[in-house]
C-alpha cells in the first residue's frame, strides 16, 4: 500500500471524525454537568436539516450554519425543560428528541421541497468548501511531508479546524475557568454547588445549550460540508457512536479527540473495502464493514478497554433533599 492510499484513508478519517468530535464534545459538556444526553443524534439531525434547508434557500452556508445551530438549540431547550426544569427521565427525553428530529425533518423537508424528504443539492456558496492552508501548494512537492501537509492537514473545510480548536478550548474552559469548575462540580455533586449559592439549574442549562451549539456544528458539517444536502436519517447513529467515544474518552476533551479519530478511521475503512482486503488478504463482507463501528462501540462499552467512571450525578435530576 502506498503513501497516497494511506493519506487518502487518513484524510477521510479526519473528515468523518469531525462530526463525531463535535458531538462528542457536546456530550462532554452536557454529561460533565450531570445531564445524560442520548439525544445527540436528534440534535445533529435537526441541525443537518435546517442548515441544508436554509443554505439551499438563502444560498449562504453561514446563514445555514446559524439556522442549524438554532435548530439544535431548540432541541436542547426541550431536553433542558424535560430533564432540568421538570426533572424527567433524561434517557426518555433523549429518545423522544431523536424521534422528533427524525420525523419532523422528513415531514418538513417533504412539504417544503417535495423531494422525498431531501433538501435540494447544495452548491457554491451554500456549502462549506475545503480551504488550502498557506504554503500547501508550494510545499506539495516536498517528499513525504509535502503530501502529508497538502492532503491531510490542509484542504479541509473550515469546520474541521473549528472542531480541532474546540478540543483545547474545551479543556481550558473546563479546567481553568470558574465556569468550568462549577460545571464539573454540578455533575459530581449538585448539592455542593447549590449550597455554595450557585444555581444548579442555570449551570445545567448553560451546559445543555453549549451542547446544542456544538451539535449544531456537527449537523451543519454533515449536511453542508461532508455532503451536499440533507437526506433522511443522515446521522446514521453518529450521535450514539459519539456517546460511546465519550465513554471511551472517560469524559476528557483530549481523549475525545483520539476516540473520535479512531471511530472516524473505522468509518473511513468501511468506505474502502479494497484497502482492508489488500492488507488482510481476505474477502470482507460489506455488511460487516458497515456494522464495524457499531460493533466496536459495543466492545468499548463492554469495558474491554478499561473501566470508565462517569460523572457521579449523571442522569439524576437534582432535587433538594428533605
Amino acid at each position: 500500500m502506498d503513501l497516497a492510499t494511506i493519506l487518502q484513508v487518513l484524510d477521510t478519517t479526519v473528515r468523518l471524525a469531525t462530526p463525531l468530535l463535535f458531538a462528542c464534545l457536546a456530550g462532554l459538556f452536557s454529561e460533565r454537568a450531570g445531564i445524560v444526553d442520548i439525544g445527540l443524534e436528534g440534535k445533529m439531525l435537526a441541525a443537518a436539516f435546517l442548515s441544508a434547508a436554509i443554505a439551499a434557500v438563502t444560498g449562504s452556508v453561514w446563514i445555514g450554519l446559524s439556522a442549524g445551530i438554532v435548530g439544535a438549540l431548540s432541541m436542547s431547550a426541550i431536553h433542558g425543560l424535560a430533564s432540568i426544569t421538570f426533572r424527567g427521565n433524561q434517557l426518555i427525553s433523549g429518545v423522544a428528541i431523536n424521534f422528533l428530529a427524525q420525523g419532523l425533518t422528513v415531514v418538513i423537508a417533504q412539504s417544503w421541497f417535495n423531494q422525498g424528504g431531501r433538501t435540494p443539492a447544495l452548491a457554491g456558496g451554500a456549502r462549506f468548501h475545503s480551504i488550502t492552508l498557506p504554503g500547501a501548494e508550494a510545499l506539495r512537492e516536498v517528499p513525504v511531508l509535502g503530501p502529508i501537509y497538502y492532503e491531510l492537514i490542509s484542504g479541509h473545510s473550515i469546520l474541521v479546524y473549528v472542531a480541532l480548536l474546540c478540543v483545547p478550548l474545551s479543556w481550558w474552559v473546563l479546567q481553568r475557568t470558574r465556569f468550568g469548575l462549577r460545571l464539573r462540580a454540578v455533575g459530581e455533586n449538585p448539592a455542593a454547588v447549590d449550597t455554595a449559592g450557585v444555581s444548579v439549574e442555570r449551570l445545567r442549562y448553560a451546559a445543555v445549550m453549549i451542547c446544542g451549539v456544538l451539535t449544531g456544528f456537527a449537523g451543519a458539517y454533515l449536511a453542508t460540508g461532508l455532503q451536499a444536502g440533507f437526506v433522511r436519517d443522515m446521522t446514521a447513529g453518529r450521535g450514539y457512536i459519539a456517546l460511546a467515544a465519550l465513554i471511551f474518552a472517560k469524559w476528557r476533551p483530549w481523549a475525545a479527540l483520539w476516540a473520535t479519530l479512531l471511530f472516524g478511521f473505522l468509518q473511513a475503512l468501511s468506505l474502502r473495502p479494497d484497502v482492508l482486503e489488500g492488507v488482510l488478504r481476505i474477502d470482507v463482507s460489506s455488511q460487516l464493514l458497515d456494522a464495524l463501528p457499531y460493533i466496536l462501540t459495543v466492545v468499548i462499552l463492554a469495558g474491554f478497554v478499561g473501566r470508565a467512571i462517569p460523572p457521579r450525578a449523571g442522569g439524576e435530576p437534582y432535587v433538594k433533599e428533605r
Partner: protein
Amino acid sequence: MQKMPQWADVLLIPLVSLILAAFFSAVVILAIGENPWEALKIMVEGALGSTYGWGYTLYYATNFIFTGLAVAVANHAKMFNIGGEGQAVMGGLGVALVCLYIPFPHWTLALLAAAATAAVFGAAWAAIPALLQAKRGSHIVITTIMFNFIAASLLNYFLIGPLKADGMEPATARFPEAARLPTFQDMFSSPDNPLFRGAPANVAFFVAILACIAVWLLIWRSRLGYEIRSFGWSEPAARYAGISPVRIIMLTMLISGGLAGMMAINNVMGEAERLVLNSAEGAGFIGIAVALMGRSHPLGVFLAAVLFGFLYQGGAELSLWTGIPRDMVVVIQALVILFTGALDNMVRMPLERVFSTLRRAPKPDSKSTTARTAE
C-alpha cells in the same frame, strides 16, 4: 399520603399527555399547510370506518402489543430496552428460517414453531446487551441501539446473500402455503358478508392478547414478577432479599427480547409471508411510546397499541389523500414519548396541585367542626 387518587394517575395523566401530543401534532400539520381537522377525519375514516380499516389498525396494533409488552416488561426492572427493533428483525429471521426450511402439515404447528423460534431469536439478540449490562455494567440503552444497527446489517447480509430468492429484490422466497396464517377475512367472512377483505390482521392478534394476559400474570402475580419489580425499584433491596441482579437482568431481557421477536409471527409470517428488508418498520421504537403511555401495564399497552395502530393506518391514509407524509406518525410518536415519559412532571405537578387544593378546600370548615369531619 397519596397526592392524587389512583384513577387520576392511571387515566387522567395519560389523557392530558395525549391531548398535549395531539395539540402539538395539529400545530405541525398546520405549519405544513394542511388542515388538522380534515386530517383527523381522514384518519378516523380510513382506520376505523370499515372492517378493512380495522383490519389494518389491528394488524399494526398486534405489532405494537408485542413490542410494547417487550418495553414494558423491561421497564419493570428499570431496564430501558430500545433494542425492540433489532430483536423484532432477528425474530423475523427466525420465522423465515422455520417457515422456509421446515415443511409443516398445518398452520397451527407452523405458528407454534415460528412463535417459539421468533422468541428465541429475539431473546438471543437481547441476551448479549443484557449480559454486558449485568456483568460489565455497559449501558444497555446504547448497546441495544447498536444491536439494532448490527441486526439491520445482518438482515441485509442474509437477504442479499444466503436467503435471497431469485429476482432483483433483496427478499426471501415466499413461505409455503402450509405456513400461511388465517387472516380475519378467513376467520370472520362469509360469502354473503365479506369482512376485512384484503386486510392483514390475522390470528397473531389473538396470540398478542394471550401475551398480554401472560405478561400480566408474570408481572403482578408471579414470584419472578415480584422479584423483577423489587429489583426495578431498588437494586440494593433486591440484593438484600437474596434476589440475584444478574439473574433478574438476564431473565427480564430475555423475556423482553422474546416478546419483541414474537412480533415477527404477525408482520413476517402473517402479512408479508416472506422476509424483506426493514421488515420491522420501526415498530420496535413505537413499542417505547406504547409502553410509556400504557404505564407499563398490559391493559394499558393493549389500549395504547390500538391507538398507535389507528395512527399508523390513519397515517398511511393521510399520505394517500393529503400532503402529509407518513413520517408524521414518527412525530406523533415522539410527542407521545416526550409528554408521557420525559415531561411527565409537567403534566403531573399542576394536577397534583389541583387535587391537593380540592382536598384542602373543605378544611377551614372542618377545623371548627372537628367532631363531624367525614371524608
